[in-house]
């Protein structure tokens, strides 16, 4: 059983940090029965995915799990809707609020995801409020979700949904409307376990 990471670059299926990395253009030929889940990086060719939406729909319908990063602009899987940009002024407009627990984010403090800085060592939140740049995690939202969708995080005062999960057939779809989730797994944030929790979820555990 394996978890694929579909990326926008030539790849040969090598295992990297638990993910079998594939070129997104090879997806139709490699998402067979041995694959439990697929992680899509946010920069993949959505026109190509849209042209191959039947492949992805069938994968999820039979029990596969997918994690979609980034901003959906083409409806390449049943139930997806288009991302909308937020009109934000300052970090408080982008502050994360957890509205439902989810195994992928178990034990992750939403505050640890808000800021990026130029430092690679742990930085106290109070200092990040002074020097950090907010918005990498998310600066937009998904307002039109399928029935039964469960929102994990919202942004700012408008409580704009950014992360949500829904069921499709026998499978599940997790949508993260910002920069790739794996970029937020790191020792310096105290979030190294985010990567293994993503893997676990994509393995169906």
């Amino acid at each position, binding site marked *: 059983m394996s978890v694929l990471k579909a990326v926008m670059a030539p790849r040969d299926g090598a295992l990297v940090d638990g993910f079998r990395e594939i070129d997104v253009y090879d997806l139709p030929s490699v998402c067979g029965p041995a694959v439990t889940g697929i992680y899509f990086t946010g920069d993949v060719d959505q026109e190509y995915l849209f042209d191959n939406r039947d492949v992805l729909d069938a994968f999820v319908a039979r029990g596969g799990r997918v994690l979609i990063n*980034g901003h*959906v602009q083409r409806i390449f899987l049943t139930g997806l809707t288009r*991302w909308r940009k937020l009109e934000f002024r300052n970090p408080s407009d982008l502050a994360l609020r957890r509205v439902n627990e989810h195994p992928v984010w178990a034990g992750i403090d939403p505050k640890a995801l808000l800021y990026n800085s130029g430092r690679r060592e742990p930085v106290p939140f109070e200092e990040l409020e002074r*020097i950090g740049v907010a918005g990498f995690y998310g600066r937009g939202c998904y307002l039109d979700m399928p029935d039964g969708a469960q929102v994990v995080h919202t942004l700012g005062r408008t409580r704009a949904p950014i992360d949500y999960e829904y069921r499709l057939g026998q499978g599940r779809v997790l949508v993260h409307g910002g920069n790739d989730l794996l970029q937020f797994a790191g020792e310096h944030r105290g979030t190294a376990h985010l990567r293994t929790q993503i893997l676990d979820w994509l393995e169906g555990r």
Partner: protein
Amino acid sequence: MSRATRTNPAPAVAFLHGGSHSHLATLADPALAPYRMRAVHVRTGVPEDIAGSDVVVVADRLRPDLLSGWAAEVKEALERGATVVVFGENHVQDWLGVPEQPRPTIFWWWRTGEDHRVRLQAPDHPAWGFFSDRSVIWHYHGVLEPPPGAVSLADLHTPDGERDGSILFVDETNHRGRLLVTTMDPVYHHGSGFMPGATQLLYSALHWATRG
């Protein structure tokens, strides 16, 4: 025929893209709709798609293995008199012959107050009628070495104050057409709703390409 005497005054703009979210969001931007940009996919497009274009925009962050196949067409457009705009993260050394070296992106300078080290050049150049300071001072992904005759509009300096290279240049002398190359990636940042300066650069580059 010169731009002024062409019977159809609206320039034909081709936008070479890769189907990523920021490319698609940019193509859907109402502010850019009047350009009636022809979306040409770097993987599925054919040379004829840009053959008649007055302006060819090479969106940033295209896959090198797909973009390299367009080198001849883009150069041909430049030599027949088109204006070509090449945005960043596109490995221009490999297919356009412009020496480029990567540089780390300092995205936090505006929060910490440190020097961004971008130095504007050639203040009297007509292109500055199109670009605001903010449109070229946000970040960069590398430095370029413009060919003789080209004009750097913005240089990056080293922390020691030495010139490192150009992050934006225009070449209006070495080809029949005009060439703009930058290591900034405004399509990504505009299309993904991140950084107002990137939006200014994208809009300004299209102004320059279609009116300059």
